[in-house]
């Protein structure tokens, strides 16, 4: 089987060739997943922190639900968003199906539970340490949210990276809501599926290696930023 050896050559050729189609796919992948991570983080970080700080009826149920949703199959998320955004669905009039925006929405749904659930855990731990001091300073609970989020920033960076990992790796959701349209909604993972079904396994694996490299790069960059800041701020 020549496939495996060829994959590395193919990956290398893909990268060195700077093929404009590939670059477009890479750019869209990053754009969709990074936007999804950002939107999800903006919603999930305060949500997770609020869950850590407030006790209210139904809180346990929400936490269990979030933890369970961390394992939500991407296809189910995709199908849900598809039914919502479809013309026959409740949000149909916006015409978002088969657009990158739809893919962002699906990925937000996938990673929001991850970021929220892990944030709650981190913030609850930190709050245990800070509770007396913050209460002593007279910090209101809403005010504690940004304080704790900022002070947990290093561990939260890892949480956000976990979200990015899931977003960039999933294919089930973006395939359904994006439609894998050439030049419009084709991202790395859906391109890999397409090449696999064409039987072009070396190209599929080559694309996979490029995707792996990208994710590695983003993680390395985040790690570097985090470590530098950590060393500076303790």
């Amino acid at each position: 089987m020549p496939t495996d050896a060829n994959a590395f050559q193919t990956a290398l050729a893909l990268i060195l060739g700077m093929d404009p189609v590939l670059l477009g796919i890479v750019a869209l992948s990053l754009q969709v997943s990074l936007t999804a991570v950002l939107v999800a983080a903006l919603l999930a970080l305060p949500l997770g922190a609020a869950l850590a700080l407030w006790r209210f009826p139904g809180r346990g149920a929400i936490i269990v639900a979030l933890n369970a949703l961390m394992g939500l199959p991407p296809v189910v998320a995709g199908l849900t968003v598809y039914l919502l955004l479809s013309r026959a669905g409740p949000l149909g009039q916006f015409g978002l199906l088969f657009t990158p925006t739809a893919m962002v929405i699906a990925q937000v749904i996938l990673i929001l539970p991850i970021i929220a659930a892990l944030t709650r855990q981190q913030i609850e731990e930190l709050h245990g340490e800070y509770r007396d001091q913050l209460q002593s300073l007279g910090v209101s609970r809403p005010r504690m949210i940004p304080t704790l989020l900022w002070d947990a920033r290093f561990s939260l960076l890892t949480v956000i990276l976990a979200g990015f990992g899931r977003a960039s790796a999933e294919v089930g959701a973006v395939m359904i809501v994006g439609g894998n349209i050439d030049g419009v909604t084709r991202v790395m993972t859906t391109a890999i599926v397409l090449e696999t079904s064409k039987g072009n396994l070396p190209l599929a694996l080559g694309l996979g290696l490029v995707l792996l490299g990208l994710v590695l790069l983003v993680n390395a960059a985040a790690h570097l930023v985090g470590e530098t800041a950590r060393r500076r701020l303790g």
Partner: protein
Amino acid sequence: MNDMLHPATAAMTAADDIAPLTFEAVSVTLRDQVLLHPLTLTLDGCHRTLVMGPNGAGKSLLLRLAHGLLAPSAGRVHWEGTTPRQAMAFQRPVLLRRTALDNLTYALAVTGTPRGERRERGREALARFGLAALEKRPARVLSGGEQQRLALARAWLTRPNVLFLDEPTSALDPAAIRAVEDAVLDFHRRGTRIVMTTHDLNQARRLADEVVLLYGGKLIEHTPADRFFAEPRTPEGRAFLRGELVW
């Protein structure tokens, strides 16, 4: 650290306005275990009250009840009058994961100080507590003594009428202990009522003008310091002074 911003006399007159803090039959029970037996006590004036007793006597509990960090299982803790501004220093200072200066500007932001004044006032406080050179250092990498001084600088900025200190020097070396004790006296000179726990008799002799002695979750004595150290009223007090009172 002794060059005072406010003359002691001016501060003392203001001190009379600090509302007395009253414990009315306050008790704390945790899972059927009585940690603090019904206790009635009033802390008033601008005293330097040292709360003493062996480990497990309920010193920290008393402080946390007073500061409102803990609700009593029974009884009532209340201020007779306007609730004063309060601050608390903990045995292990809790500092935010930010620079020394940012820890101070944060406290100022919380108390509603205008943004433009925060950095300057923060720097003043750092200088007053001998931390000016450490302004940009992450608070969490400072030494134990520096951290406790930073915590006191933070308390200083909030201009508390009452300062609670929970064994603030128990983990420090002698030089750092001295710096903290000086700071406590500075607070008092500015007109702040001091309520502090310690298990160090000598520290109590240096700082106290009245003593609260707890033993086994019970209030044993509440006595002016000179009288307590000269002639305790209770057998437990006498035993404590002889170093014979253990948990």
